[in-house]
């Protein structure tokens, strides 16, 4: 079984996000970038499948500017066998990314495609589902457990209020939630080895996909600042304020 894993380059999750003063976007200049945490979980899951013998090959794909090669090298250091970068400097929206992934999927014909459920920058939670729809594949989103049983992919999903298990006919799409696994760190020897692994670069035009935008971001603002309130001295005072001032109990 071949597994395709999508990897997105995003701001490191420890970095405090600042909005640019002209309100055009958040400021990403000189900010540490990393593999989206949910994509790390996707890589880990694929690599574990390879280690368990259920997957023969793990291919990582990223879509974006040239610098995304850094994140693909990370994926290779974590255990992916080879990588593909669909390189473009244009603004990418989820539907276009889904179309590009579909084109890569058609070339690679993997039995399983694993993506993060969302990226921590745009927080859309769309790409995996859009790609599944375009490819006509079943999906298991927000996965906390994935098992392969012949041509069935059984996925336990985190849903509001509990867990739901679905059985998908391969080829299938899985998007990862936090509980699926705990990603490893890349070891130094593996980081060195990753530099020699195959990384192919192609353009959206090579894949026959037009990059277009059908929504635009008019402005980006910081959220309304929350003003701190007061300190109360006693529990009695607290309950009194909640009851008579805030009127929430």
């Amino acid at each position, binding site marked *: 079984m071949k597994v395709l894993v999508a990897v997105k380059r995003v701001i490191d999750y420890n970095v405090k*996000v600042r909005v640019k003063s002209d309100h055009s976007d958040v400021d990403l200049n000189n900010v540490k970038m990393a593999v989206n945490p949910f994509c790390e979980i996707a890589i880990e899951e694929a690599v574990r499948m390879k280690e368990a013998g259920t997957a023969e090959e793990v291919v990582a794909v990223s879509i974006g500017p040239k610098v995304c090669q850094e994140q693909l090298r990370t994926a290779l250091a974590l255990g992916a066998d080879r990588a593909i970068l669909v390189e473009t400097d244009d603004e990418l929206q*989820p539907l276009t990314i889904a179309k590009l992934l579909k084109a890569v999927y058609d070339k690679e014909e993997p039995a399983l495609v694993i993506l993060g459920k969302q990226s*921590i920058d745009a927080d859309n*939670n769309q790409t995996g589902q859009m*790609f599944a729809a375009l490819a006509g594949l079943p999906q298991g*989103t927000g996965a906390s457990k994935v098992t392969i049983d012949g041509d069935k992919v*059984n996925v336990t999903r985190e849903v509001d209020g509990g867990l739901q*298990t679905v059985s998908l006919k391969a080829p299938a799409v899985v998007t990862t939630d936090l509980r699926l696994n705990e990603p490893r760190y890349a070891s130094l020897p593996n980081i060195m080895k990753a530099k020699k692994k195959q990384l192919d670069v192609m353009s959206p035009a090579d894949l026959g996909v037009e990059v277009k935008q059908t*929504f635009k971001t008019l402005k980006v603002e910081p959220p309304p600042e929350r003003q*701190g309130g007061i300190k109360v001295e006693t529990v009695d005072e607290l309950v009194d304020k909640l009851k008579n001032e805030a009127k929430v109990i």
Partner: protein
Amino acid sequence: MSILVVAEHDNSKLNQVTLHVIAAAKEMGGDVDVLVAGKDCGAVAEAAAKADAVAKVRCADADCYRHQLAENMAPLIAELGKDYQHVLGAHSTSGKNVMPRVAALLDVAMISDIIAVESDDTFKRPIYAGNAIATVQSTDGIKVVTVRHTAFDAVAAEGGSASVEAVDAAHDAKISEFVDEELVKLDRPELSAAKVVVSGGRGMGSGENFKILDGIADKLGAAMGASRAAVDAGYVPNDMQVGQTGKIVAPELYIAIGISGAIQHLAGMKDSKVIVAINKDEDAPIFQVADYGLVADLFKAVPELEEKLNEVL
């Protein structure tokens, strides 16, 4: 102008979040139709017809929609959606599962998790876990949108008298099957829908100690949450986590106990209406966002609070 709202339900009851989504639809302007797709879901359609501001309920009752699998739901919603300018769902796990699939089938973008309607094509949505708010304008002919239900006040559940029309389109993709469901039996409300949330942090010291919060939560009818630090320390399960990588909540009252207030936690709860913090460290960042802060040892303050609540409520 007309809008299709995809109802959320379990075949027997209409989920309250749908009333919030209808409210968002109302702000966009135009007739609001509600789609109820399920199996033996007539009661849900009836309930939706009674909701305020609904023009028509369209009910697709077929076995293939029993578990609302995305593979079967998306072609149905996309087919009906072609006749609307907006197709709306809740930004819940089921909305997130189905709606992007609908958008892709319609070859349009999707706008996720909106918190405000500026006009019929312009919406506000949080990005970077709420650390920035983007105003986005869609240029697609059909706008597929998911709505953060806590950002819109629900329309009235009673008072409307919409017609119910059967839709007999059965899309069975036969590529996925429902296996089973383990819904947590909640004695308490669900975290992301609760009006009151009581959360514990690392200051609780152990999982065992979380029990001391039970009394307050019971008294207030609150859901129980936790900070990532408490989850990482193994005190409580992951599904209780409030924060950037956990659940985003915006209750009327949020009580943070033994929580220092890391950015990642604040991102998940700072839109709460009233925030109370109890922490023994007076410099804890949680006090910068709390409406009412109490600097105290939680093991003394919590039992006292429970006792006091028992007196006044």
